[in-house]
């Protein structure tokens, strides 16, 4: 049986097709999970919350999507230890839903930033088998509100638990300690601002996204 990856879609999600293309490129099966529906965790091997502008980014990025019905199923999947990856707006949704620590606020420059950046893998998430600690990757970012913020005590707790898994080599948006990706305590739920699905083929300008998605989905 092929492994099926559930891809969540909210109104305004716009990296859904891109993620689908990447999942297929890795030889896996993908299935849409519509924001209004619930699902059975057992039918899937992993979940991705793609990027975009759910609900137009209105009010606060990810805040409105975090309330959608599909999130209660995702919560259950997270609790059962299924791998869950939130990319960009998906990361924002996971923090708003309380599945990941911290919050993502407006970039220090106040401007949207689209560019290729260097990233460093800091700690490994439980699923990140294809990544090596200390490894650097080159991936594109594209966000206006990607500055990771967390209070000091919480940050300390996160470090103790090894929940900071990816950092920017150059802090492009003013994130606390240049954090680009974090995980929950049990490390099955991860979020990252960069877009691995935009670095899957050499014609895209780089292929480092493969190792990220590969680790998650194998």
């Amino acid at each position: 049986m092929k492994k099926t990856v559930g891809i969540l879609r909210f109104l305004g999600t716009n990296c859904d097709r891109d993620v689908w293309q990447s999942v297929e490129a890795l030889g896996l099966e993908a299935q849409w999970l519509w924001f209004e529906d619930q699902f059975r965790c057992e039918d899937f091997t992993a979940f991705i919350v793609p990027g975009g502008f759910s609900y137009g980014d209105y009010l606060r990025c990810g805040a409105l999507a975090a309330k959608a019905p599909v999130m209660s199923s995702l919560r259950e999947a997270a609790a059962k230890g299924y791998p869950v990856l939130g990319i960009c707006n998906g990361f924002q949704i996971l923090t708003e839903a309380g599945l990941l620590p911290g919050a993502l606020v407006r970039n220090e420059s106040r401007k949207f930033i689209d560019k290729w950046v260097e990233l460093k893998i800091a700690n490994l998430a439980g699923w990140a088998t294809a990544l090596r600690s200390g490894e650097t990757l080159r991936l594109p970012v594209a966000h206006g509100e990607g500055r990771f913020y967390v209070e000091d005590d919480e940050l300390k707790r996160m470090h103790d638990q090894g929940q900071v898994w990816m950092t920017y080599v150059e802090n492009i948006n003013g994130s606390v300690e240049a954090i680009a990706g974090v995980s929950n305590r049990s490390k099955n739920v991860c979020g990252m601002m960069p877009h691995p699905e935009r670095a899957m083929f050499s014609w895209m300008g780089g292929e480092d996204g493969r190792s990220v998605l590969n680790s998650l989905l194998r």
Partner: protein
Amino acid sequence: MTEQELQTHFKKYRLNRGEYDRICSLLGRPPRGVEWALFSALWSEHCSYKSSRLHLKKFAFKSKRVLQAMGENAGVIDLGQGEKVAFKMESHNHPSFIEPFQGAATGVGGILRDIFTMGARPIALANYLCFGEPSAKRMQTLVEGVVSGISGYGNCVGVPTVTGQTEFHSSYNTNILVNALAVGLFCDGDPVVTSNARGAGNLVVYVGAKTGRDGVHGASMASEAFGAESESKRPTIQIGDPFMEKLLIESCLEVMKRDLVVAIQDMGAAGLTSSSFEMAAKGGVGFRIHLDHVPLRDSSLGPEEILLSESQERMLLVCEPGKLEAIKAVFHRWGLDACSIGEVTTGTDVELYWKGDLICQIDPKLLTDNAPMYDRPYDSWTARNKKQSLQAEPVALDKSLRSVEGTSRQWIYQQYDQRVGGATVRDCEHDVAVVRLPHSGRALGLVLGCRPSIMRLDARLGGYDAAFYPALELAAKGFQALAMTDCLNFGNPEKPEIMSEFVASVDALADAAKLLDAPVISGNVSFYNETLKQNITSTPATGLVGLRDNVDSIPSSHFNQNCERIYLWRFDAIQMVGDQLGRNPHFTGDMNPAQVAQWLGLVLRASHLPNIHATKVVGKFGLGYALYRMCQGELGARVELGEWAPDLAAFGQERMYEVLFSGSQSALKDLTELAHGSETSVWDIGGVTRGELTLGGERKDLSALHGLYRGGWSENFPGLS
């Protein structure tokens, strides 16, 4: 109506005596009630193209790839292998000057609707921007507002902005240009849907945002020159909602794909009026519309305002009655409402009802097909700036790199999502944007054209260049140009000088399209870009689409290997001096358009040579500037003096046309062979090195040059960083 009342109406509805007489003779009586508003909107320059229609016929030429041309929402070309693309460019100049953020945002929204209303999924956006001098009043705010408006809208709907062009000149100080282009893709089996209404008894359905007072009389406003009072005389500003647009894209594509609609049209300029009248007129059917069924955001709106409102993100469609429920279900799933506001009738009139009363019944063709057409006076073109010899020194490299014309545009495009969609092969950093076609794996190239500085030099040359320069950029990356779109931005057409430039550049553009076998398949005219009697530089912006078989081995825009050789291929037609630094623009030489087009074919072949690795078309500021632009990081160049550049100043000489290549030693022989017999010259002018750009023995430190090029932006726009 007394003479005085008539005058008041003329003013309010922006119609003149001659047009009024024409209306009276078409109707057999004077207009009454909402008819005034209807004629005002549909006979405006913006909707009727009354000053340009006569000349736009020159674009009638088609190639075998053309499936839809002028007249539909966008042109469509066949790429073969089951793939087709629709594309179009449109202006939003006036609204962007009034409220830059919303003006630019709604410009992007409007052009996207033109594309997906045909059934194509938008896959790329581009923008052509002309601003005034950085020191002009409000200019920093305008630049910031326009760029964030484009990024705010484009990023949110999830369509990548892959290329653009940004120009600065004092002639745009009080009238900026904001032109947006969108490309949409049809894959195997996607229907091309038109706006021709059909079938008596079918329903007219309204979807999308509710109607508000936004932009009432916007279409006729856009057809008027700016006066001093424009800044205060503002209708309710149209607000763009990219989130709503995203929902509309997905839901409209779904109903079209499932064959639930007969015809569909977005509500653009002049809102419900133009969409319903055009749909009925094109289909040769009648419409019965209940204006009081239109969903309103503001319940105090009357029928005239409902007809003219330019609220954004609204669509009108026609469907069979039995399909309404299925349509509603699709829209509902995407969080939108659809409701029937009327039906198609057996006659040919549009009947408008308000709370049960028939308030207007009129044949829509009187408003569309019978709009006036003017043959505005113009003179045949004379090349006034042509001189025996050139009289001014070129601009030095350091100066050009940090100038507002020459500095990096990264501040702009870094704010655009260039990669959403997962198909971007070449982003805004490159001369030609490239998007991968998902089914065939082929590459679609996109590039904008029109150099205002050439237009100021000579409108005829400028018109040719608006097609040739971007076509050359495509060719240099191995793309065959297939078709183009245009956005003709001009001043007041009632002035013969302006009209003469219009005609000269349109004639040239049309001729170039034929020579390149790249027909103009869609476009837009924006006249009256005139404020307080100052007209903008005539600016016929273009967008060209090209195709190549694969996404691999597209020549780079930058040097990519140390020690490679650098070649220059020159087709020497025109040498010129631009108007930077207050110089009088002038040129020498002649251009034979047919020969340029032939040479373009040779460049295309050269760019496919396996020993060619990078290419760049030489443009503004000449050879030195283009060589710098090929330098990246540590990789620079050492170029000697020679026949191609007898002295240092020659590195700043501008011409039409030259292309730079870099590649291995063996490429010289191949290039020379290709050039053989074409009256063009190929030279080995130097080599790729590290850390320096040395031109004719004058060495410049590369990192210093990078500093100038990147720092130029914040030097010119200290407030925007």
